[in-house]
């Protein structure tokens, strides 16, 4: 393998990894607070992509407005999801919460089929992201370069919210102890709603960039990125935001590199992430950056 090809694959891996990372943040935040795998999180990617398509297509908004707007709408959708599917089950056994999450995921996918139809739609990629430039002899689409940059910017913004604002403090408190947080006079439901908003907002950014990268939007487009992003979150140490992004990068790079170095196993690409998951759970269940989880009941 030549240096240029390796460089090319490295860029692809980082780009894919940053998308996994963006989506993984939402999983890790919700898991940190509710101890719940939000199965419907991946479907928010699909929701965001369709919202962006319709904002551009029907309301003919320029992408500079419609993409952020789609992210906000998806964030609100995250709040709706929490309100309808998870909040009524706060005191229920965890298994019920998880079943509700699976139900919500299937509901979103099948509603999309009923309302929009199962035929893939093209995604209108703004010309700005379409350029191809040459770095060190490698032709790269600029989108591939923007993706990690956007991810890092969003990550820094999120870290500011979580570690420098009052709401962020409340979130960190809620992830340690519900009761004590309530006793401090914090409105727990509001904190959880904000968590869902932020996670879904970032998932939407991931979803829109995913749709620009692979411009075939269909009702099930979020399933695999969602599952893999969750694995990235586990790999990085669940509950840890920076860990989620690092896990995302590692998983994305790993997937691309495996296919680049061993083309004959490319059919098994989708199984790779799950093998990683099993290995992590066997040997280091807390992930790379994680600390042991306190079992909330």
């Amino acid at each position, binding site marked *: 393998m030549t240096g240029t090809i390796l460089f090319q694959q490295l860029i692809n891996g980082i780009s894919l990894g940053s998308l996994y990372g963006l989506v993984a943040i939402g999983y890790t935040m919700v898991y940190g607070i509710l101890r719940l795998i939000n199965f419907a999180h991946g479907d928010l990617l699909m929701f965001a992509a369709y919202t962006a398509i319709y904002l551009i297509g029907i309301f003919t908004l320029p992408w500079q407005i419609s993409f952020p707007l789609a992210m906000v709408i998806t964030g609100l959708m995250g709040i709706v999801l929490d309100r309808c599917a998870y909040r009524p089950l706060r005191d229920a056994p965890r298994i019920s919460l998880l079943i509700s999450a699976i139900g919500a995921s299937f509901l979103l996918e099948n*509603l999309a089929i009923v309302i929009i139809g199962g035929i893939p739609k093209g995604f209108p990629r703004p010309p700005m992201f379409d350029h191809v430039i040459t770095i060190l002899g490698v032709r790269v689409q600029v989108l591939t370069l923007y993706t990690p940059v956007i991810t890092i910017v969003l990550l820094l913004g999120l870290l500011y919210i979580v570690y420098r604002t009052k709401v962020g403090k409340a979130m960190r408190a809620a992830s340690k102890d519900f009761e004590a947080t309530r006793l401090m006079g914090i409105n727990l439901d509001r904190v959880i709603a904000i968590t869902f908003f932020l996670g879904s907002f970032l998932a939407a950014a991931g979803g829109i960039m995913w749709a620009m990268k692979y411009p075939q939007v269909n009702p099930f487009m979020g399933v695999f990125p969602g599952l893999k992003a969750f694995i990235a979150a586990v790999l990085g140490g669940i509950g840890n935001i920076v860990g989620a992004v690092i896990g995302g990068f590692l998983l994305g790079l790993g997937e691309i590199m495996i296919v680049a170095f061993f083309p004959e196993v490319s059919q*098994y690409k989708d199984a790779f992430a799950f093998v990683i998951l099993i290995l992590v*759970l066997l040997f280091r269940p807390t992930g790379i950056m994680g600390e042991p989880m306190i079992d909330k009941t």
Partner: protein
Amino acid sequence: MSKERRNLLLNIMGILVLFVILYLFNEYGTDYQIRILNNMAVFITLAVSYNLVNGICGILHLGPNAFITIGAYTSALLTMSAAEKQMTYIIVPLVWPLNVLHTPFVVSLLLGGLMAAVFAFAISFPVFRVRGDYLAIVTLGFGEVIRVLANALQGVTNGPLGLKGLVPYTNLWWSWGVAVLTIIAITKLINSSYGRAMKSIREDEIAARAMGIDPFKHLLMAFLISAFFCGVAGGLLAHLITTISPTLFTFFLTFNLLIIIVVGGLGSTTGAVIGAALFAWGGEALRIVERPTDLGFLKIPGIPGMRMVIFSIILMLVIIFARRGIMGRSEFSWDWLLSKLGWKEKGF
């Protein structure tokens, strides 16, 4: 007559009545009705064995579709004749010794179940190291890995083309016979000391451990038995629809089973049976919403995909507002039925 003898007699009579009904359908029913009854029996087998892990042991296992796949492929490969196999595997020839093996249907079903149990044993070590959501995602991942393998290992599974033209061995006797055997076996297990240990793990694993119960041993036992019956049901399913391919056994199948046991009542075998029967029947009845309907004055276009929307909504409504489902954790018993019917208990 003691209560036990009476209940045993009533059970035997119940099974006889069931088979008389099946006989009548077999003779006079339409193909469509027989098909629904076959589906019903396969779903009952699947739901009852799935409920053993999810309802009785209280762990959320999301990979039964993997065991159904393994059972279906194993059983199908064993009943196909060598000539058929040669015709089917056009791209990559089937590996030895599968290409010459040929067994009767019943042996193939048993081996399908055993094969599923072997795989279940192989993944049980990583699976039972974790609990809760992690266990759910690991088992779900296993289901995906099996699907990827079924697509990729062309020398064994014929890849995405799948296997076609299987002999339709599955009839009402096979499907309902297996269903009844599954119900008997799993009820016996649940009412044994093993079953009580499993329930105690569900209620409080630490307390169960303190009572000297080994959680791994009991969970493994439930997992293997459940996988075995899922594998057998997979074999039945393969010889019912006669064409199998990896797309048939996605997470979607697991989702349907989950709906069945949640609606029926997590932890109740009776509930699983009722849920499966309702699902097999309701799934067909709901086809109405996907077909264009002509009311004479009004034409309603069919909405493809609407059935799954309705199923998802039912699942969420049940889990949020009626978590106990139809049966809760109660079981059907003759004592209960007879007392409802006004039967006076005689001293004995």
